[in-house]
């Protein structure tokens, strides 16, 4: 990959990701509403919400919070640029966890009982997801012999053929990452109580807008990783990538609408259980094949 293509991909990510993910979010709300027998809002609703949040008065209990929130967004952006410009997958995972630490710092900076509760839950969520995220990077390395996204993407092998267990495990933790029911524990998009709003409970106006934006950028990376399982040197594999991403997107909406929130203990057990079984077996088989 030349420097120019890297820069072009990075710029495309920064400009396009919010539009694409925002729109997916809009369709998400529409499809969810239809599943519940409602008409639902316009597909542009997420953009209206974001714009309004920027226009609202900014009240805050601690000025430092805004700085933390902005740092959160910056680190997510950095991770995305690293990923889409084809750098090291392991670096992307580490940079994402650094970003998550800033979210935790932001939510603890106000001493509100609701955000403290949310922060604890967020930390548990991180604990549930992180092993699988790391293992995905390791899996790609074992299957493709490289951590570089640019090399994985043009490999003659198709990731999903070698890493089906990793894909299953990754899709499982995506429900946690997307903050979808049954794992919308630290903060939820359907929050009728302050405690459910958790980490974002104290984020007002533009702060909440930045967090939403960061979430969109992060989701773009996560969908990108799904895509990485389906891409290879054949240009036609792009179709497979798009289809796979849309299938995962729909699956997450379906899960969101058909399940009730669980306790964090169960979430942790399930996430680690799936990680150990699915990724562990896959890892074992991969080693066997390589002999």
């Amino acid at each position: 990959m030349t420097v120019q293509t890297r820069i072009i991909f990075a710029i495309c990510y920064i400009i396009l990701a919010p539009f694409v993910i925002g729109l997916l979010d809009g369709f998400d709300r529409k499809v969810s509403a239809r599943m519940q027998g409602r008409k639902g809002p316009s597909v542009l609703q997420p953009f209206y919400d974001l714009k309004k949040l920027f226009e609202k008065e900014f009240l805050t209990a601690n000025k430092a919070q805004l700085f933390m929130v902005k740092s959160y967004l910056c680190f997510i952006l950095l991770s995305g640029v690293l990923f889409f410009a084809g750098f090291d997958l392991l670096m992307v995972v580490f940079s994402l966890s650094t970003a998550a630490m800033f979210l935790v710092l932001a939510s603890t900076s106000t001493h509100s009982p609701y955000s403290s509760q949310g922060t604890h839950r967020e930390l548990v969520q991180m604990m549930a997801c992180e092993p699988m995220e790391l293992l995905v990077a390791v899996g790609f390395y074992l299957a493709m012999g490289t951590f570089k996204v640019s090399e994985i993407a043009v490999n003659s092998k198709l990731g999903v053929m070698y890493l089906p267990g990793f894909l299953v495990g990754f899709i499982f933790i995506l429900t946690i990452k997307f903050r979808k029911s049954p794992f919308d524990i630290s903060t939820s998009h359907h929050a009728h109580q302050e405690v459910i709003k958790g980490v974002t409970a104290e984020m007002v106006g533009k702060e909440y807008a930045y967090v939403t934006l960061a979430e969109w950028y992060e989701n773009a990376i996560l969908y990108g990783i799904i895509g990485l399982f389906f891409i290879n040197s054949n240009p036609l594999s792009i179709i497979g990538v798009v289809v796979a991403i849309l299938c995962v997107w729909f699956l997450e909406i379906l899960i969101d609408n058909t399940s009730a929130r669980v306790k964090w203990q169960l979430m942790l057990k399930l996430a680690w259980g799936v990680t150990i079984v699915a990724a562990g077996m896959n890892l074992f088989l991969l080693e066997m094949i390589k002999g």
Partner: protein
Amino acid sequence: MSTIHKSPWLLHYDGSSCNGCDIEVLACTTPVYDVERFGVINTGNPMHADIFLITGGINSQNASVVKQIYDQMPEPKVVIAVGTCACTGGIFKECYNILGGADTVIPVDIYVPGCAARPESIIDGVVKGIGLFKEKAAALEAKQKAQ
């Protein structure tokens, strides 16, 4: 053009109501009435809310709570009193602990009468509230520009 009115997030607080009006407010979010088509989200967090929907009267215990919720909401914001209790104190008006309607502690913009207020009239109130929300946003913007 401002699109602020397309995203009114709603906070519902139950004062000392009989729960009749609360059930009707919740009915608005069900498939039959579906207020989400106007972009309304029923949030539980005053800091994220634009429209404060209050049912039931004010008593000596919840007066400070209502006041605090109102203060925590960032500008621009709209207050809607739903049901006769929230408008005037209703059938509880003469009770020893009741101070009166929501307007005894915070400024109310829109009154939705009825015992219980019907979902149709609540939605009417919310739609009026959304109109007012847009006006208040424009006024706030003009004020900020003038500063």
